[in-house]
Each structure stands twice: as structure tokens, then as C-alpha cells.
């Protein structure tokens, strides 16, 4: 029994091995990778919905190159090891391109595998500069970079808000800390950084750090991280009688932020891409998405556009071969829900996409 079990197991593996991947005739497979389970699964769902919408639209029009698109979801659980496994799985199944991953810490190790397999990867949300700085020719992103975003936030703080004393808080993630460091770097000499401190993600009690912030009495509080911690931080700060406004990035640009923080979020700033309401081409996306899935998450539209860029490029290249598709993507001038997207040599979008938003009467509104 004992060793037979092991044998049986190995047989199972063998059977699994014979089921080799590859493009089936008549179908083009596209990978969509992100955290589909786990605490941040909502980001994964937003991404998947966005990509699904794009796939459905293309399939309704008859597919790409006359072939139906098949969407293959990949769950990286926001964990690098799983991301590598997903990437290998995609490579083995011969997907024509990948939208994702979400976390930079997942996108970076996965990109190496896509690079080796010659698969185009368009990340919808990984903003860490390192991703495209690796110099892989197959890696693109439709979102911005943390250094651009940090600069945008710092410029706004210095030029518009004219702050002199800032507290910088981050959540010790690749994203949050990287963003916070870029922000600090771009503040210039006229601004004093009173506090630069990390908090623990997943914690609920930020009263010690809030007390600290209050005691240094800054003009502005920067937060590098996502809404789960951001909302609590704002709320606990205001509950302790704090008055300074917060500024954050794309991570806190979410309805959830407003729900968690409640009225305390009023007056909070966030750097993000421009309002899609102002982009005529986004109208269709917003309507269709709402019809199918409800209010879009902030990254749904990025995933949607990333998928569309992929499909359009495959269509234009006349095949799924990475060698043919990659130059097309690099040269693309795509006009989608996010407006015009063009890539530079690294694979980043050419125009820095960041503007500043502000919470006014319980809603994020773009600061004109």
C-alpha cells in the first residue's frame, strides 16, 4: 500500500504530463493573471471582469483573426511563488498573451518566464519601476510608474498645496514603500519630512502611528499603500482630532476607501489616471461594465484596455507568434477607454498619465 500509493501518485503525474498544452485550432488563448483568491481578491475580480468584457466584445464581433478568444484565468494569490507557477502554466498552455499580474512582486518574477517563452505581457496595475527597467522586450504596462506617480504627488503637494511639513507613511509593500520613497525624493529641499514610517498591512489598529503623526503636526500626510489601510488610517487620525489632509496614490482610489474611511476621507487627495468620464471613448466601457458587473473597480478599465491592445495587436500582426506581435504592440497607437496609449522603448506608456483627485462630498473628483 505504502509505496503503491507513491507509485499511483507518479502515474497521476505522468497522465498529467501527457496532456500537453498548445493552441487548439480555432481558438486563441489569453491569460489573465492576478490574485483571484485571498484578501485582495477584489482586485483580481475587477481585472478579470475587465478582461472578460473585452473578450466578450471581440468574440461577439467574430473573434480575433476569425478565431474565438478563450480566456484562461490564473490565480497568483499575490504570492511570487504562485505567480511563477501561473506563468509557467501559461507558457505551457501556449497563451498568446497575458494581462497581469497585479502586484509588482508577482509581475517581476513572472515576466522572466514570459520573456523566455516570448509571450507578450501587459500589466494593468504593476507600477513598480523595476518591472520595465529589466529591459525585457515583451513587457508592457498600461498603468503608470511609481516614480512618475511619486513625482506627480510631490509636485502637487509642493506647487499646489504649498506644504512645508510632511509625514510619510507606507505599508511596507513593494508598491507602497517604492511609491513613498519616490514621493520623498521628489519633494525637494523646501519641504521637511517629519516622519517616514511603515505600518503593518492587515493590521487594524494604527493608533500608535496616528498618535505619532498628530504629535509632529504636519501640513500633509502622504500614504503609500492601498485603501484597506489608508481608510483606517484616515479614520483613526480624524477620530483622534487630526486635521491635516491625506494624499495617496492609485491604491487608495477606490469606493472602498470612502466606505472604510467614511466622512473622515473628505478632502483626501489621490494621484491616478484622468477621469474616464471625460474620455468619450470610455463611455461604452463604463456602460457595458455597469450592465454586467456593476460599478467598475479602478483597475477594471486598465485590464480592459490591456486586453484590447493585445487583441488588436494580434489582429494586426496576423498571428499569435510573439515575434510578430511584440513589434506591433510597441508601435501601437491605441485609442481606448483610457484615451491614447503609446509605449516607449521600455514598455511604459509615453505620457505620464497622472492627475490628482480629491474627495469632495463623499466622491473622488478630479482636481482641475
Amino acid at each position, binding site marked *: 500500500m505504502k509505496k503503491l500509493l507513491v507509485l499511483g501518485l507518479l502515474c497521476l503525474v505522468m497522465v498529467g504530463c501527457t496532456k500537453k498544452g498548445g493552441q487548439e485550432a480555432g481558438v486563441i488563448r489569453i491569460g489573465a493573471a492576478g490574485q483571484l483568491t485571498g*484578501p*485582495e481578491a477584489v482586485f483580481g475580480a475587477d481585472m478579470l471582469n475587465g478582461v472578460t468584457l473585452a473578450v466578450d466584445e471581440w468574440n461577439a464581433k467574430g473573434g480575433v483573426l476569425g478565431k474565438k478568444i478563450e480566456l484562461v484565468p490564473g490565480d497568483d494569490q499575490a504570492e511570487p511563488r504562485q505567480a511563477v507557477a501561473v506563468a509557467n502554466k501559461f507558457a505551457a498552455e501556449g497563451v498568446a498573451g497575458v494581462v497581469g499580474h497585479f502586484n509588482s512582486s508577482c509581475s517581476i518574477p513572472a515576466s522572466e518566464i514570459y520573456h523566455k517563452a516570448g509571450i507578450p505581457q501587459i500589466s494593468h496595475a504593476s507600477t513598480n519601476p523595476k518591472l520595465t527597467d529589466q529591459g525585457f522586450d515583451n513587457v508592457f504596462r498600461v498603468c503608470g510608474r511609481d516614480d512618475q506617480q511619486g513625482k506627480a504627488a510631490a509636485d502637487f503637494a509642493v506647487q499646489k498645496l504649498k506644504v512645508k511639513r510632511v509625514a510619510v507613511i507606507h505599508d511596507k509593500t513593494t508598491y507602497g514603500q517604492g511609491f513613498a520613497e519616490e514621493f520623498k525624493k521628489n519633494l525637494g529641499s523646501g519641504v521637511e519630512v517629519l516622519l517616514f*514610517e511603515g505600518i*503593518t498591512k492587515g493590521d*487594524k489598529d494604527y*493608533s500608535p*502611528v496616528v498618535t505619532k503623526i498628530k504629535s509632529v503636526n504636519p501640513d500633509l500626510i502622504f500614504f503609500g499603500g492601498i485603501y484597506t489601510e489608508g481608510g483606517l488610517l484616515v479614520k483613526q487620525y480624524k477620530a*483622534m482630532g487630526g486635521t491635516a489632509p491625506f494624499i495617496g496614490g492609485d491604491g487608495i482610489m477606490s469606493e472602498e476607501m470612502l466606505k472604510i474611511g*467614511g466622512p473622515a476621507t473628505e478632502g483626501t487627495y489621490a494621484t491616478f489616471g484622468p477621469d474616464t468620464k471625460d474620455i468619450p471613448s470610455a463611455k461604452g466601457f463604463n456602460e457595458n461594465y455597469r450592465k454586467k458587473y456593476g460599478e467598475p473597480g479602478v483597475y477594471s478599465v486598465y485590464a480592459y484596455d490591456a486586453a484590447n491592445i493585445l487583441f488588436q495587436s494580434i489582429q494586426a500582426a496576423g498571428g499569435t507568434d510573439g515575434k510578430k506581435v511584440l513589434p506591433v504592440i510597441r508601435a501601437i497607437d491605441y485609442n481606448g477607454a483610457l484615451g491614447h496609449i503609446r509605449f516607449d522603448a521600455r514598455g511604459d506608456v509615453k505620457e505620464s498619465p497622472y492627475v490628482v483627485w480629491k474627495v469632495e462630498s463623499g466622491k473622488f473628483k478630479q482636481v482641475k
Partner: protein
Amino acid sequence: MFLQHLLNGITIGGSYALIALGYTLVYGVLKLINFAHGEIYMIGANLGFILISLIPAMPPFLQGNLILLLLAVVLVAAVICSLYGYYLEKICYRPLRGAPKLTPLISALGASIFLQNFVMISMGAKDRIFPQTIGMQAITMGGVSFTLLQLVIIFSSIALMALIYWFINRTRLGIAIKATSADPYMASLVGINVDTVISVTFMAGSFLAACAGVMIGLYYGSINFTLGYLGGIKAFTAAVLGGIGNVPGAMIGGFLLGVIEALGAGYFSSEYKDVYAFFILIAVLVFRPAGLLGKGANERA
């Protein structure tokens, strides 16, 4: 500043203490660390959320009395949670009575994973936001800011601790729990139904954890399915700090841990906030394994 940190620490310490009581009670009767206890706390918080979101559907005359409603929410959540505790013991621990130490610990880990994912699947992975209820305005007195809710939480946790103290020392069942912790064999000889006592212990511990869960949910306003891990570990540290198996010890340990964390994060760095808890845990275990109030140093295995 110091007083502010102290107050922050006491607020969070109260919930640590409530959860720690569950660990301590169970450890007392079964000599077992109920690793899934943190998840019960998490389920309590989630039940609180579900019940509070039912409030708008209540008849209007009830809705006027918010305090009463909140009390009812806490109570119902706690009762359902104590049933969770009952089933947890029945499914994961009872069949393993007398098995090697490792076995129930692993089944507890299994239960922990199961409950976490059960809640994740049913409640969704994203944070659930409690509706803004009472007393979120800041009150400042002598340089210390706090909210009404904070005071309510501190006082309720103290009241609950008084309740459990009364339960253990003054009621028949409570005294049976005490007797079973001292010597299960003797307890069974004098006619105490040890199975019942164990079930009741789990239920009492879960009751307190659920109360802590709902209160924390109200206080921070946002909960999710991962709440139980950190909360559980911290509370366990508190229980060990006070001397596991020792009821007043768990209470003092909870408050102490909350205050130490708040002061550590406040005066040193909040980046290492969790490290303080673990360092204290290791230091206490190594230098005073029985905890601050514990007795019989080395024999506890």
C-alpha cells in the same frame, strides 16, 4: 502623548484580553492550545457585520433604540459563536482526546484554514465596512483624544471580564470548570461530566471572543476574513504573558500586551510593532515559562 499611547493600548488590550480568556480557559481544562480560537473571533466580527446590516430591515420602533439594538447584535453574534465553539470542539478535538499532542494541534490548524476560507467564500474577500454607528467624534481632554466608542469598548470589556470571573467562581458550571482544570480525573470521580465542562468552556471562550470581534468591528469599522490570525496570535501571546491557564493572568496579559505594543510602536518604530509582541512572547517563555501570574514553572508540558 504618553497618556494617549496608554489609552490606545488599553482599548486594544481589552480585546486581546477577551480573546486571551478563551485560550486560557481551554488550556486550563484540556491542556491544549486551541489554535482555531482566533478564527472564532473573526467569525464573531463577521456575524456582527451581518447582523448590523440587518438593522435597516427591523421594525421602526426598534430602530430608534440604537443602544438596545447593538446590545442585541453582540448577544446574538456571541450565542451563535459559542455554538461554533461547541462544534469546533466536537468535530476537531473530541475524537482526538488522548491522542499525541501534535494531533489536535494540526486539526486545529485545519479548522483554522477551513473557517477562514469558509468566511472568505461566503462573505467575499474584500473588507466589509461596518456602518458608522455611535460616538465617532473626537473628545479631547487634557491633550488626550478619544471617542465615546472607545470608552464604551473599554468598559464593556471590563464588564465582560467581571462576568466571566463571576461565572467561574460563583456558578456551579464555573466551579466545575475550575475543578476540571485542576484535575480532570478527580473531577470525573466527584461526578462532574467532563465532556459537558469542556463543551461549556469552549462555548464561554467563544462567547467572549465574539464580543471582542463585534466590538473591534465597530471600533475600526472594517473587518475581513484574515482578522483571526493576527488577533489570535496576539491574544495567545497575552495569555502566555499572564500565565496560560490563569484567568486573571489572561486579563492582565491582554492589557499589558496592548500597552506594550502601543508604547513600542509609539516611541520606537511601528514597523516592528508585531515584533514586540513576539519578542515579549519568547522572552517570557524563556525566562518565566509559567507567565507573570503562573505557577509550577517547568512541569507544564
